[in-house]
Structure formats: C-alpha cells, structure tokens
C-alpha cells in the first residue's frame, strides 16, 4: 500500500475502538492524578493533558515499536499513548521505587527508553534536538525507524526548535515535529508570544526548512492519525521531516494550582463542545462501531485500571535514600 493509500484507508473498527480506549485512559489517568495531587498525595508539579488526548493518541497509533518519541512537561498522554503502563507511571508520579525512573524523575521526566520513549522534558523545546539525534541514529544505522517530537506552541520561540529542524532538513532525517497548539504558553496567549504572521498557521515556523507542513484539528483523533500516518510513511521512506500543527485546547490550568485568570469568558466552554471524549464516543456509537453499553463497560474497565494503578503507586515503597547516589553513571565498562 502506498503511503497515501495507507492514510486514506478505512480505519478498522478495532483500531478506532483502540484509539477511543487510549484517549479515555489518558483522560481517566489525568483526572485521577489531578485529585490525588489536590489531596497532596502527589508531590511536585503536575501539568495535565486533558483536552489534548486526540493528539498523542492519533500520532502514537501511527507509530511502530521501533520508533522513538520525545515529550514535554505535559507528557502523561504521550506515555499512555505509547503504551507505557499506568501503574508504573502513577508510581513515578508518586516518587516510588516502582516507577519508570525509580522515583528519580517524576512527572516531568518519565521515560521508558526500552519503549523508545526518550523522556518527558522540563525544558521547553529541550527534547527536539534529542529526537533529531534519534532520527539521525535511525538513518545512520540504516533502519526505517522514525522519531517524533511532541512540543507546545511555546517551543517554537526557542532556538532549539530552529536549529533542530534546520539540521534535520539538511540531513533529510526521519523526524516528525508535532506542535500541540493549545492556545497558551503558560498564562500567556499565542498572540503575545508569536508574530501575527504565524497565528493562522504555526507550521510557518518550519517554512524556511522546506519540511512538509500540515495544520489539522487536534481534537479529531482520526485526522491526527491519518496525518501522522502520512508523515511517518514519508519519513520511513526517506522523504524527510514533517511539521504538524494540531490545533487544540488545554482544558485545565497550565499546571495544577493555576488560577486561569487569563481565559476569556466562555472560551473554555466553547472548546469543550469539541472535547474528543465527548465527540468520538458519540461518533463511534452513531456509526455502530461500539454500543453505548460497550463504552460503559470500557469506561468501567479503565476506571478499575487507573484505580489499581494508583493503589500500586500508593503501596509501593519510597526509594531507599541511598539510591539517590546511584544511577548517575554506568557501572563498569571499559574506561568508565
């Protein structure tokens, strides 16, 4: 199947249901950890992905196991969509030894290198050069692996974005940049952070590099999936980098604790009409892909999963203090 055909194909029912499930799992995870954070069970910072589920889900559904991704401070959605286990994720958020990073990373640094997940990142745009390197490595090792970097609209103002895409374009690397335009960088709207020339289409930031550019609805998981699929196939086949802007909205505060003083009245409600977890289940039910009852079952299963994940996290031990001094360097190795 050619990439174009692949992208246009009817998405099989089981895959659609799978995407719905992934989105629902992200939503559930985020909602529950939001509560646990409010209860002071979870330490540190928490940046929720609620509202943006379709992006991580659609993109990651287009990836294969061998591929790589880098994420941001708002990374739980990418982790779940990538297939990380919610129990070890929750444990990491709780700072427990059973977490993905044994409690060393927390929400802003969850990683599972085994799964090609090269880490959330607390530095805006910090992951883009790393993904560029994974794409370079994929190419040098003569594989058809691709690397996806997720980042926010705000990251487009950092030099790291530009240096990376410039280099990726010169070297024709299999790199896909996914701009999650959620309308804000922290508490400041797009129009204060980007010139007017960019506001209609943030992918214009990639224009100099001659990369493929797509601007799509980030609340439509199937559109995201199809677009990502095209980009992935192109990258696998040596067609070089793509930059995709997914237009969406963040339903919660920038981080938990944010008063959200900056939202114009009604804006949130308007966007919530397009909540993928409202529209997509409805659509699948309407189209007879899933029954309401099945969806309720699915939801219940997910609630149980996340409840158990939280239990797992709660019951896991905190790391032994001495572990603070481990893991910085590789053990042994020649000349180590």
């Amino acid at each position: 199947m050619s990439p174009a055909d692949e992208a246009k194909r009817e998405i099989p029912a089981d895959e659609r249901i799978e995407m719905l499930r992934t989105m629902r799992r992200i939503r559930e995870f985020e909602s529950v950890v939001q509560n646990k954070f409010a209860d002071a069970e979870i330490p540190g910072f928490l940046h929720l992905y609620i509202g943006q589920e379709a992006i991580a889900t659609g993109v990651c559904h287009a990836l294969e196991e061998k591929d790589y991704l880098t994420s941001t401070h708002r990374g739980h959605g990418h982790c779940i969509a990538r297939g990380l286990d919610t129990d070890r994720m929750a444990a990491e958020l709780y700072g427990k030894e059973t977490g993905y990073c044994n409690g060393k990373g927390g929400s802003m640094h969850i990683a599972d290198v085994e799964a090609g997940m090269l880490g959330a990142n607390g530095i805006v745009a910090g992951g883009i050069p790393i993904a560029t390197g994974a794409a370079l490595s994929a190419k040098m090792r003569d594989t058809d692996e691709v690397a996806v970097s997720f980042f926010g609209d705000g990251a487009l103002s950092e030099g790291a974005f530009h240096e990376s895409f410039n280099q990726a374009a010169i070297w024709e690397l299999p790199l896909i940049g996914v701009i999650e335009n959620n309308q804000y960088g922290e508490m400041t709207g797009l129009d204060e952070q980007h010139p007017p020339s960019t506001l209609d289409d943030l992918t214009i930031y990639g224009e100099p590099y001659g990369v493929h550019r797509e601007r799509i609805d980030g609340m439509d998981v199937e559109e995201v999936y199809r677009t990502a699929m095209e980009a992935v196939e192109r990258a696998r086949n040596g067609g070089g980098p793509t930059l995709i802007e997914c237009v969406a909205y963040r339903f919660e505060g920038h981080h938990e604790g944010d008063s959200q003083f900056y939202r114009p009245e009604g804006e949130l409600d308007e966007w919530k009409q397009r909540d993928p977890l409202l529209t997509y289940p409805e659509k699948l039910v309407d189209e007879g892909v899933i029954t309401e009852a099945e969806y309720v079952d699915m939801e219940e299963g997910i609630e149980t999963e996340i409840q158990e994940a939280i239990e797992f996290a709660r019951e896991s031990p905190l790391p032994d203090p001495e572990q603070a001094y481990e893991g910085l360097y590789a053990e042994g190795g020649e000349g180590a």
Partner: protein
Amino acid sequence: MSTATSGTEEMAVRDVINQALGEEMERDERVYIQGIDVNGRGGTSNILKGLDERFGDERVRNTPISEVSIVGSALGAAATGMRPVVEIMYCGFLGVAGDQLLNQVAKMRYMFGGKLDLPLTIRTKNVMGANAAAQHSQALHHWLAAIPGLKVVCTSTPADTKGLLKAAVRSNDPVMVFEHGGVYNRKGEVPTEDYVYEIGEAAVERPGEDVTVVATQNQLWNAFEAADRVDDVSVEVVSPRTISPLDTETIAESARKTGRCVVVDDTPLSYGTQSQFATTIYENAFFDLDFPVQRIGVNDVPTPFSPSLEDEVIPDTDDIADAIRKLA
C-alpha cells in the same frame, strides 16, 4: 547603611521583592522588567503581581519563551540607556542563555576596554526541596560565579533581599540575583527607609565565639535553627550575601576568631561554592584553624524527584548541627 532613624516592618521575602522593584521603577523610569509571564501572572512565583497595572505593559514586558533573546536583548537595552530587570523563571533555564551570559553579558565591558556601563539585573531563583526534579530543582549560583564579569548575589532574608536587589538594580554592572524558592515566604523585619547593601560585602548575621557557619539562602535559615539547637556551642553565622566577588575578609575574620568552620550551601560539593568558601578560609586563617572546614552540600548528583531521595541529598538543619557538634 544606617537604619538608626528608620523604623522596620515585618515582611515576607516575596513581598519585599515586589516592593523593592516597584520603588526602583518609580525612582528611575529606565528600569523595566522583562521575562516570561511577568505581566498578568506576575512572574513564575507571582511575586510581581500588580506591577503590570502600576507601570503598564511596556515596562512589565511579557516575552516569548526565548531565553537567549530575553537575556541578550536586555543586554542590548542596558548598553543603550535602559536598566532592564530580567526574570529567568528557574535558574535551570539559564543554560538556554548560556552564551549570552558567558560571552556577552560577562565580557562585554571588559572586552570593550571598560568603556560602557551595563546596568543589567538578572533575577532568577534557586529551587531545592520542592520536589521539582533535576531540571527545575537546582542551585546554580556557583555556576554563574565561575564566570568572571558577572557579579552574583544570593538573597536570603527579607532585609538583605531589599538591600541587595536595590543595589543590583542601581549597579552599573550586570548582577545576577539568585533568589531561593525556599525562602520566599520567610518573614523578618525590614527597615522601611530606602537603602542598599554594598555588593561584595558579607555580613555576620549572628555573632558567636566557638564555631563559624557560612551559609546561604535556605541554608542560612537552617544554620540559625542549628545554632539554636546546639545551645551549648556559641555559633557565629555568616552570610556571604555576594558570592562573586566574595568578601574574603569578613569570612576570614570570623574563621580566625573561632578556628572552626562549617560551610553549607545547596550547590554540589565538587566545584560548588563550598570549596571556594573553604579555600578562602584555609588561606586566610590557616594558622588559626583547629580542624578542617566542614563542607556540607549536595553530594554531586542532580536533584532526584522523590521526596525520600531529595531529602537525602539536600542539606538540612541536622547536617549543620551535626557538623557543629563534630567541631565543638
């Protein structure tokens, strides 16, 4: 500075910053603020709240998320008649602006033969103990102090925050002001009059006879607590206030008196401030020292996220008290 005729008022560090910047902006219209979310949110710790309304969007400027340009454009503005006060949200983001700090801000005046003033203040905060993980949880004043050409101050108490921040804003040199997230809510008496603390002067915050503790920021507060706790030992607590250039004499004088010193800071033990403080003491009080200087800091790892791990790596009151007892 004389506070003889002046009253004092109890304030939290965070309110002192807001007040001091407001006063400086009133005093000199060339003073302005730029950084991420400084307008609206009032900066990353909401400390600047209200300055936007008082001084307008031009003087409290929201920037894009572009640390190179935030720092570099402030430098250019400082070189051409303005007196910018930059906020870098967390000190961990200073790395993004690494070149502008290392090669432009620090070297411009010197390279140009000393022929221009650079009245540039860069405020940022050390954060440790907030479970913010390795990138957000750092203390980096040693890293900037390692660059000749940057003056570096560390604010710790409400009173020194006022004196040092105002001094930085009025200085004609680039000054890095390291605040600390762990002391923003600390309260203390602050003279109501206008004053500056000399950049480059340390202070004996609490006089004593037996053991000297040199400490910064949250560790200064821990040092006070430790001093209270070991009440059989008379502890002298010294706050360097300025990290670069360091006030060798004030620190050494205390060391010569007590002959026993503890130095404590949130930076790493290797190449952190403690080694510089200790060296200063050894060199200037060598024949008066009874024991080696006790260095307390982070044992050369990034800051881990988990509370159990972070508690382990960050110095606390117990560590200081133990070190004092060991010497006494």
